[in-house]
């Protein structure tokens, strides 16, 4: 084994002095806090009342970060904190529960960022005996943090630095053993690209740049292995419930994910003119059919995969024709690296997806920022005549430049908002972002409940923290003329997401629940023994959303941030004149949202965080 860094022994010694035992089923009752600068670590107790108020995942993560003072810190500084957070359901037999949240202040938005990823890292990380692993400080050199039950050490990462995600994970497993679960950053994280991901086994904690936060701490990888299981309060009933849930997960509610994958949204969105195309200049794409999964399946090999402890199996991998293996294809990758950049060549889109996976780039932000740069180049705002919509070679070159650090790459690596401010020419008007986070593949003009969700989202434009598109895809609203009746429906989707991200369960399971809050309460009761109710979980979800808002207020949030790009608010979609969202209408929706949340009309939270 490669020798540990000199301070590794200190970490272990400090750790053993502060051992705390757990008390609540489903939890270990503590988190591991590692100070990478001093080489010390400690086990910090989490009392039952605190856990019940914030549960786990995103909720527990933001609570820990607030206590760490992370809202006020520069996210790429030594003072910044980053938390890998597990949950009471991780390690249980409940399908899709093998998930973890990575929570930090985002270097892209300077606001709260909680990104979720799945699979073995969640199970092994929790089995180390901690409900979360919190990193502060900065390692003195590129390092791997190894956590093996109570043993914590830093090992050199020199031989891994510069490697792509898969190669780094393979190399580390060779070094440590196959029973370790590993999360890594790619070259993008090392170079502090503000939308760098953290990767585990082909999946990513993708949005908001948590990979850059880890890179700024000189941590290439975290390897976890453990043997500590938590108890379940009612194991027999839990197993029976898990069996029923798994059976339901094979039904029609998940058929789309299981049989086709999320990429099948592409043609439906294209038909409804809500497929962002050429940097939101259009809502439909003439080349959509060529890159649709329906077409890709005809022409190339497709295989299916799933996360650990998942019965849905939503992942669809498509083979590359150049023999370079296969790549997972999701709707967001496809939209961002296809229509958003005007690319209709399937091989280019798949190659771009694979490149992002290996470099560790968030595909939505990468595609959005490059599409923005393409428009800047076409308008003559930047000197890059080769960068044109529809040019696949240019897309690949631009992705590579993000990590090569050339002049254009340096701009791209900051994301579209920062790039716009540097480019000038009022290009911020068409930078496709909210709070600095690039907008996912839902045109807000044709999906105006989603527009509200994007505008008020605490981590920026985000389809995973607000599922308001579901409201737009229903009879409940006129999606192109939404009024305040949509507000409580939008809030309901946001609260459901907050609860799912804190328990943690996969959102692709949401369709199988007839009464999610009640069924979630029963799951939590069986795991923890708490007499928790649907009403309590509704209040918990709202509390978690508000706590994220409090984090942002401490980080400098102002009401002016809750908006959409000028293009979205002043230009109708060319294919659909009714798809027009005025600033006045958006402002009305936002004020109604703030009031419904119990905040001031402008969106401030008056209560102290401790009283929430």
């Amino acid at each position, binding site marked *: 084994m490669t020798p540990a860094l000199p301070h590794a022994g200190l970490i272990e010694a400090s750790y053993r002095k502060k051992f705390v035992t757990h008390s609540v089923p489903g939890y270990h009752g503590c988190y591991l806090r590692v100070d990478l600068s001093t080489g010390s670590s400690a086990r910090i107790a989490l009392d039952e009342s605190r856990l019940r108020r914030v549960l786990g995942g995103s909720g527990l993560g933001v609570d820990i970060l607030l206590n760490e003072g992370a809202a006020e810190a520069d996210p790429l500084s030594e003072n910044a904190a980053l938390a890998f957070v597990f949950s009471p359901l991780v390690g249980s037999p409940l399908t899709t529960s093998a998930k973890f949240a990575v929570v930090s202040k985002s270097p892209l938005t300077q606001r709260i960022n909680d990104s979720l990823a799945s699979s073995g890292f969640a199970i092994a990380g929790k089995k180390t005996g901690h409900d979360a692993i919190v990193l502060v400080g900065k390692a003195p050199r590129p390092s791997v943090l190894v956590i093996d039950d109570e043993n914590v050490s830093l090992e050199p990462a020199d031989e891994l630095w510069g490697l792509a995600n898969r190669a780094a994970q393979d190399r580390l497993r060779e070094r440590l053993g196959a029973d370790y679960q590993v999360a890594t950053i790619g070259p993008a994280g090392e170079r502090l690209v503000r939308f760098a991901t953290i990767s585990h086994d082909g999946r990513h904690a993708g949005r908001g740049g948590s990979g850059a936060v880890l890179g700024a701490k000189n941590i290439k990888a975290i390897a976890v292995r453990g043997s500590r299981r938590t108890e379940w309060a009612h194991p027999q009933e839990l197993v029976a419930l898990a069996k029923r849930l798994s059976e339901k997960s094979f039904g*029609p*509610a998940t*058929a*789309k*994910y299981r*049989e*086709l*994958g*999320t*990429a*099948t*949204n592409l*043609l*439906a*969105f294209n*038909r*409804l*003119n809500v497929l962002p195309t050429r940097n939101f200049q259009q809502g439909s794409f003439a080349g959509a059919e060529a890159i649709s999964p*329906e077409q890709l399946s005809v022409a190339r090999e497709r295989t299916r995969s799933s996360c650990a402890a998942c019965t849905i199996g939503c992942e669809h991998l498509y083979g590359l024709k150049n023999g370079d293996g296969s790549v997972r294809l*999701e*709707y*967001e990758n496809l939209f961002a690296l296809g229509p958003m950049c005007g690319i209709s060549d399937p091989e280019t889109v798949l190659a771009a997806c694979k490149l992002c996976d290996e470099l560790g780039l968030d595909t939505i932000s990468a595609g959005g920022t490059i599409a923005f740069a393409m428009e800047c180049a076409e308008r003559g705002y930047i000197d890059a005549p080769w960068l044109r919509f529809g040019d696949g070679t240019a897309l690949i070159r631009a992705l590579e430049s993000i990590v090569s650090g050339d002049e254009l790459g340096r701009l791209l690596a900051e994301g579209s908002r920062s790039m716009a401010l540097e480019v000038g020419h009022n290009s911020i008007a068409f930078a496709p972002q909210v709070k600095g986070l690039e907008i996912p593949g839902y045109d807000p003009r044709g999906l105006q409940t989603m527009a509200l969700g994007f505008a008020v989202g605490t981590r920026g434009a985000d*389809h995973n923290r607000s*599922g308001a*598109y*579901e409201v737009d*895809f*229903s*009879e409940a609203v*006129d*999606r192109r003329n939404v009024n305040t009746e949509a507000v409580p429906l939008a809030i309901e989707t946001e609260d459901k997401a907050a609860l799912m991200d804190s328990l943690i369960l996969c*959102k692709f399971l*949401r*369709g199988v629940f007839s009464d999610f809050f009640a069924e979630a309460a029963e799951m939590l009761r069986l795991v923890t023994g708490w007499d928790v109710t649907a009403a309590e979980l509704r209040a918990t979800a709202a509390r978690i959303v508000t706590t994220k808002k409090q984090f942002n207020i401490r980080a400098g949030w102002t009401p002016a941030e809750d908006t959409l790009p000028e293009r979205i608010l002043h230009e109708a979609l060319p294919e*659909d004149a009714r798809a027009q969202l005025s600033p006045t209408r958006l402002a009305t929706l936002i004020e109604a949202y703030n009031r419904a949340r119990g905040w001031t009309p402008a969106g401030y939270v008056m209560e102290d965080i401790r009283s929430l």
Partner: protein
Amino acid sequence: MFQERLSGVAMQVAVELFGIPRARAGVAQTSAAGSNLGDVLADLAQKFPPLAETCIDGRSLRAGFVVNLSADRFVTSPETPLAEGDTVLLLSLDAGG
């Protein structure tokens, strides 16, 4: 409706299928007879039994599926009237991903 009774031929509407409905029917586009949504769904169910098994229950949509009319509004009621020139888009309700 009046014209149908006069001619004895039900109105035909264009139908486009996406995602699971397309996979079950095996076609991306077709046409179906009916002056309201329920009639059209019943006709589709007769033409494409695998589609009915997953997506259609009699004259109604099964849970998890929704119809959009002409890329405009979403509807579910079988009594929703259809007009000449309408296009029925049949898709999964859970649009996200």
